[in-house]
């Protein structure tokens, strides 16, 4: 195993203004995530799961503490200068899929590769491969509004994975899906984790998803109450 963790958070705090009061979303969280991990962030609403994901995903900045992603301290770097890190190192899977409505499934998956300025032939091969991986080769030309919820989330997963990220972040990836579809999505994500060794961190309420996580972090009131530990994955 790689000796250095992929993600290291040291005493990270984040406070949000909410009207006249300030809400402490994170209160000095420290966490290490190993490469290839399949980590669930669990906890009730408002416990700080999404805030933690946002900070790891380099789309938000902490008020204090330090965040190191893949050996790079991203804490002092302004967010707009982290676009390349997000593009090359991270993949995002959103609860509401967040596909670009005017692009087809193929074009949505291709989009990150265009940002990476990959040559056309490589792009085509990579997009076809990932659409096949998520079982949507036949729906490549369809736009998001012509796809079911499960299919949209598959496109979103293909979009997150096509750039070959080291870390995929998913915020409640199954929350908008029925249980059968959610199960299939979990199978897919788990399989990808096994096959690509891409690290997955997901925030979830879903007991099924938590049960399948290799590591679990339980959060409460902006702090971690259970340290991550490697567990035998539920069969």
């Amino acid at each position, binding site marked *: 195993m790689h000796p250095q963790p992929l993600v290291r958070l040291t005493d990270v705090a984040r406070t949000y203004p909410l009207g006249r009061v300030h809400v402490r979303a994170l209160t000095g969280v420290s966490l290490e995530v190993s490469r290839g991990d399949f980590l669930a962030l669990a906890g009730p609403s408002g416990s700080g799961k999404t805030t933690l994901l*946002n900070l790891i995903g380099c789309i938000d900045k902490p008020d204090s503490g330090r965040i190191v992603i893949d050996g790079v301290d991203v804490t002092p770097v302004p967010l707009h200068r982290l*676009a390349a890190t*997000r593009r090359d190192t991270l*993949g995002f899977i959103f609860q*509401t899929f*967040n596909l670009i409505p*005017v*692009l087809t499934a193929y074009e949505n998956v291709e989009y990150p590769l265009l*940002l990476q300025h990959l040559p056309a032939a490589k792009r085509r091969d990579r997009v076809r491969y990932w659409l096949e991986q998520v079982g949507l080769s036949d729906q490549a030309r369809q736009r998001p509004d012509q796809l079911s919820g499960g299919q949209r989330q598959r496109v979103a997963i293909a979009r997150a994975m096509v750039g070959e990220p080291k870390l995929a972040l998913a915020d409640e990836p199954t929350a908008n899906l029925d249980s059968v579809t959610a199960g299939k999505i979990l199978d897919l994500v788990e399989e990808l984790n096994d096959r690509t060794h891409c690290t997955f961190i997901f925030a979830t309420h879903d007991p099924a998803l938590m049960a399948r996580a290799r590591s679990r972090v339980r959060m409460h009131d902006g702090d971690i109450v259970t340290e991550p530990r490697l567990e035998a994955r539920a069969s």
Partner: protein
Amino acid sequence: MLIKLALRNVFRNRRRSAITLLVIVFGAVGLILFGGYKAITFRGLRESTIRDRLGHLQIYKRGFERAEAKKPLEYGLDDVAQLRRAIESDRRVRMTTAQITLMGLISNGDKSETFMATAVEPRRDRAMNAQRLVAGTNLPDAEPDAVIVGKGLAASMHARPGDYLTLMSTTTSGSLNAIDVRVAGIFTSGVKEYDDRAIKMPLAGAQQLLQTAKVERLLVLLNETDDTDAVRADLDRLFARKQWALEMKDWSQLATFYHQVVLLYNGIFGFIGMVVFGIVIFSVANTIVMAIFERTREIGTMMAIGTTRTSVWRLFLLEGLFIGIIGGVAGLLAGAGASGIINNAHFMLPPPPGYTQGYPLRVLMQPGILITAFLVAVITSTLSSILPALKASRLKIVDALGHI
């Protein structure tokens, strides 16, 4: 990809885009129609000013412009025959005609009025087609005491063709002289104030009244107005070579009214342009702002997966540009169609202030006007998306992703 995205986004909310495009199309059509109307008005006014009244060039004896003459025709031209031969040998010159302008009193025996007379060479003056006869005949070739009288002055003098009137003026030696003239015809120039005082008479009659053989000026009429500067330069060289003490003015230096009209119309055109500019700016900016509001989460997603701020800015700028291009092209087509309809409908406009006759409404389709209308559409549309696009690129990703 940005181009593809921008184009598809333009057609995403079709109703809103259609309204924005309609605003741009109306603006472009307005610019094309008014610009075309302005162009044809300028051209018509310029050519009528030159061919009816001023000629392309006017030649005087040196000193005519600066000196205050103590007596009539003190700075008149003595011998125009030699000058005329030299000028008319140029193929670009259509003809020359000599003129005298004079003022005096006109009387029918019962009452007197002031008159302003232009003395002309009848045959050559007819080629200039300066006025429209409303009664009688034009100036005959060989009748020095025949005149044609402006409509208002004829009415004031109760004169009809065939009547006799008396003209009185100061001679070149400073004494008073009077001659009887026959009213050959009554004319209108279209300008009431001018018709109330105007007389046209043969050069020979005016020379008899003023007791001189001189003429005041020689008008040069060219085949093409565009040759004015070149012919003027050649004539300047000719005068210098021949050591003729002459000076010259071109039509532009003399056409005060034309320049006032140009200034006025350009002012109106500029104002309309600004109004169109403002409407397009606000309309497109509104469309882009609404699009940004609706697509906030999408922008957040794009930035989260690695799209840079600059790319987001470019995307919305491109959307503004495409709206402008589509609106501009549609505006050109609609403007061309509207111009064709107007030109074929033969609408008549009422007489302008000071005129007695209406004139047909026509629109000139000039490449310059079409290009201007297109560029105004594209540039205003693009400019108006700069700030909203900047706002989109500055969105906080977390806030944008949480936007509902």
